């Protein structure tokens, strides 16, 4: 067994001898490699012109799917947004909409 | 044929029969023997009958069971004679040591027809004289060593002095009393 097996090299086709001991993961942040955005049924839309960049939506996102660059949020990371809608509720300025959300 | 000396101790929880068995194992070990010292465990209760055992041999001891046919039996509390079959399996070549002020004539009828030697010692009296308290196991240990002839007298006292000095390192004042208890018991044990 290799000394170091990166999570990125493991997938559902990996034979048993090519997994880590006890399936331990020797790197941080490996969940970014899993495209959980694919699970989404409802999709939030970022309405940039209404956004005041208050950033209230950023910390409430359970999937860290709202990227922030230079203190400004960008459009959603749809690879990881699961469409929970929490950000929609957190926005005081209607700058996030989500069709189908009650 | 038998190359192992087997001793069974009968006492009541709290009287030190287990301690006596462990001390005998200690002192026999110091003379270069192979030893075993172990109690028979159950729920531990002060005053309840307990049994402890010794095996002493020149060869490695493999047997790990209780002792059913002892060479000698030591009875730390004579009230056990009425409730426990202390002579069960006891070799008639060996003998039984009992802590009692009674005579052999009074004791013998309590021994289920046992025909071997009966040794008596007033372990309580010796203990109260030398230690000021009833610790019958110390005189009993000395008496059993004398009866079984498992080691030389002076070796025994020398080794016990070292053991006590170690055991009572934090209260050396009790060493002399314990040694005196051993010496008196060694002298006073009666055959019948």
């Amino acid at each position, binding site marked *: 067994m290799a000394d170091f097996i990166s999570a990125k090299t493991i997938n559902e086709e990996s034979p*048993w001898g090519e997994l880590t001991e006890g*399936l*331990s*993961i020797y790197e941080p942040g490996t969940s970014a490699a899993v495209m959980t955005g694919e699970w989404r049924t409802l999709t939030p839309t970022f309405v940039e012109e209404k956004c005041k960049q208050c950033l209230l939506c950023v910390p409430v996102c359970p999937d860290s799917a709202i990227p922030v660059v230079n203190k400004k949020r960008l459009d959603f990371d749809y690879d990881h947004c699961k469409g929970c809608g929490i950000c929609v509720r957190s926005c005081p300025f209607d700058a996030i909409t989500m069709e189908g959300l009650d | 044929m038998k190359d192992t000396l087997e001793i069974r101790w009968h006492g009541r929880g709290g009287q030190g029969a287990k301690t006596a068995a*462990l001390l005998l194992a200690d002192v026999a070990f110091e003379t270069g023997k192979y030893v*075993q010292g172990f109690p028979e465990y*159950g729920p531990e209760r002060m005053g309840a009958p307990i049994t402890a055992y010794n095996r002493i041999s020149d060869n490695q001891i493999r*047997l790990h069971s*209780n002792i059913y046919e002892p060479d000698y039996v030591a009875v730390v509390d004579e009230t056990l004679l009425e409730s426990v079959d202390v002579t069960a399996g006891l070799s008639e070549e060996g003998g039984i040591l009992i802590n009692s002020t009674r005579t052999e004539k009074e004791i013998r009828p309590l021994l289920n027809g046992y025909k071997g030697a009966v040794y008596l010692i007033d372990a309580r009296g010796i203990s109260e004289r030398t230690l000021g308290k009833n610790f019958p196991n110390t005189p009993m240990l000395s008496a059993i060593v004398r009866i079984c002839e498992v080691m030389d007298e002076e070796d025994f006292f020398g080794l016990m002095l070292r053991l006590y000095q170690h055991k009572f390192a934090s209260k050396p004042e009790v060493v002399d009393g314990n040694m005196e208890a051993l010496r008196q018991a060694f002298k006073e044990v009666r055959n019948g």
Partner: protein
Amino acid sequence: MSKKDRLSGNEAVAIAMRQINPDVMPAFPITPSTEIPQYFCDFVANGKVDTEFIPVESEHSAMSACIGASAAGARVVTATSSCGMAYMWEELHVAASDRLPIVMNLVNRALSGPININADHSDGMGAKDTGWIQFYAENCQEAYDNFIMAYPIAEDKRVHLPMMCCQDGFITSHAVENILLEDDEEVKKFVGEYEPEHYLLKDGEPMAVGPYSVTNYYFEARRAQDEAMSHVPEVAKEVQERFAKTFGRKYDFIEKYRMDDAKYAIVIMGSAAGTMKYYVDRLRDEGEKIGLIKIRMFRPFPAKDVAAALKDVKAVAIMDRAQSFSNAGGPLGVEVTNALFHARSQAQAMDYVYGLGGRDLLEEHARTIMDDLKDIAANGHDDYYRYLGVREA
């Protein structure tokens, strides 16, 4: 230099622990293993070791703390018995599947119920399929020696599995007998430092231990765990050879006693192996061609060694100090007959359940076995197992 001493099994194991000076000991007291953490606490309080002792609130917590500490990179030790280990049940599996080389002294005691504190192997046998390595000691010397060999086996890169060193409750744990102790420094040198490659507190390598595993991964992880177990014999053999070279006492996975020309054999584990050797000697004195095989390593099971050792016998008695309720024999019986079948053995095999709840193995039992073995060798048998030493009407 070895030093002659006389100790109980619990004292001997506590001394081995002191000599090894592990990083962490989480423990919860239970008879008859209580003395081990008790003696060890003295060593901690007197500064003889620098182990972090964690007085936990239950055995479930004890094993959980072992897992956390071991995953963090510590060398970890604990001790328990019977119902205490039963309460660790879930965590035993986690320790093994997380591949953590925790070493535990299991002082074998009957499982409730009825509640009983004396020796049998129902606790150890109950945990045989948890993924732990298991060694069983015949006496206090072996309890000490097995413990010293445990970390080098468990921590080897080819293994990385937890290990249970078992000794019989009271019979071994509380009986004072002769033992050879080794020098503190020699033991430390033999066991060596623990240097894990991956651990939670490793600087610069954030790590996740025990992640959820979906169906697509679980089976592969378990297969890999079995592979690790398959490396135990080669590693344990190396460790045993190094032990023999260092300390002069030789061990193998099984011990053959008077087997050279044996036509009959008894397979047995734990303290009763010593008792049975004594009875085998008596039977040999009477001209019976009987020998004994003691199982030291039960997990992994040395099936091929056992089959090879039994290849010339006509009939074998397998001694189980535990029940299985399969109506087809106890756990050791199943292992041994499996080994015999795969070796295409023609030997007759009879399993015996004996010694439950501390019941002694007596010479009359050995004689019953001898008579039975001669009978089944000549006439065969329909039954798979028998009871020995239980009161019959």
